[in-house]
């Protein structure tokens, strides 16, 4: 029981710390690895909150696929280091905005209630599938997702393709 608490709070602390490292690093590769650590510790939090299947998806899809894509592009383009933080006004404005957002976030969380439903069980993949397909609520969203993926596929190929010579 106490192990659960230690694991959850540890994952929360690691997620926040590596999230800060993401924006504190100058080198994009370091940011990418920090983001992978953030995603893995978020997967731990998902599992502790009872969403084991989503935790697995988080590791496989996010840390495994999307971040590898990012690392591919960073290393392909040999992205040079960030020259520095945004100069002058916009940096200070970002700090002020961040403080305001953080205060609002804490206020929202502070006003929430901590009561939980007592009869809840960790969900498996079959529960997610049943929730997705048992009722027609998510049917159109699911179909729209397939169109989105298809158009993203075509769009990515068209944008990243090397252009042919004009007079061909």
């Amino acid at each position, binding site marked *: 029981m*106490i192990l659960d*608490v230690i694991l*959850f*709070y540890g994952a*929360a602390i690691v997620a*926040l710390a590596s*999230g800060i490292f993401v*924006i504190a690093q100058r080198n*994009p590769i370091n*940011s*990418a690895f920090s983001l992978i650590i*953030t995603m893995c510790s*978020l997967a731990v*939090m*998902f599992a502790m*909150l009872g969403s084991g*299947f989503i935790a697995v*998806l988080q590791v496989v*899809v*996010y840390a495994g*696929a999307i971040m590898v*894509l*990012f690392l591919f*592009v960073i290393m392909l*383009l040999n*992205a040079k280091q*960030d*020259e520095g*933080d*945004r100069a002058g006004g916009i940096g200070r404005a*970002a700090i002020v905005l*961040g403080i305001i957002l*953080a205060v609002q*976030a*804490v206020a*929202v*969380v502070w006003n929430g209630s*901590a009561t*939980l*439903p*007592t*009869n*809840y*069980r960790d969900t498996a993949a079959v*529960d*997610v599938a*049943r*929730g*997705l397909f*048992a009722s027609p609520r*998510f049917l159109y*969203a699911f179909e729209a997702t397939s169109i*989105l993926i298809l*158009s*993203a596929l075509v*769009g*990515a190929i068209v*944008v*990243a393709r*090397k252009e042919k010579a004009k007079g061909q």
Partner: protein
Amino acid sequence: MPPIDTLYTSTLGAFEAAHAGFVQVALAVSAFLFVIGALGVFIRRNVITVMMCIELMLNAVNLAFIAFSRAHGTIDGQILVFFVFTVAAAEAAVGLAIVIALQRHREDLDVDSFNLLKG
């Protein structure tokens, strides 16, 4: 959508005591991760880092969805996370294709240098 307790009837009584604070901690972490991501979009200048900060914000939203799914005892939040995964994958594919095209045409990844539409 029926709550999960109609799908499964097992109860976790003693388990709940230790887990009572988990949802609020998860919401707080989610809020702070979102703020960190928003700050990163403002203060970083590399396009790829900015995109990674957007991914960080999407992850924070996912954590909030999971926490609310836990708090309400329904599975809808997890299904929405499923959709967020899909949209994030599509966004990463198109965004990184745009980054490659930018590097090819401009040979620069600094967001401040892309000001062709500036009046």
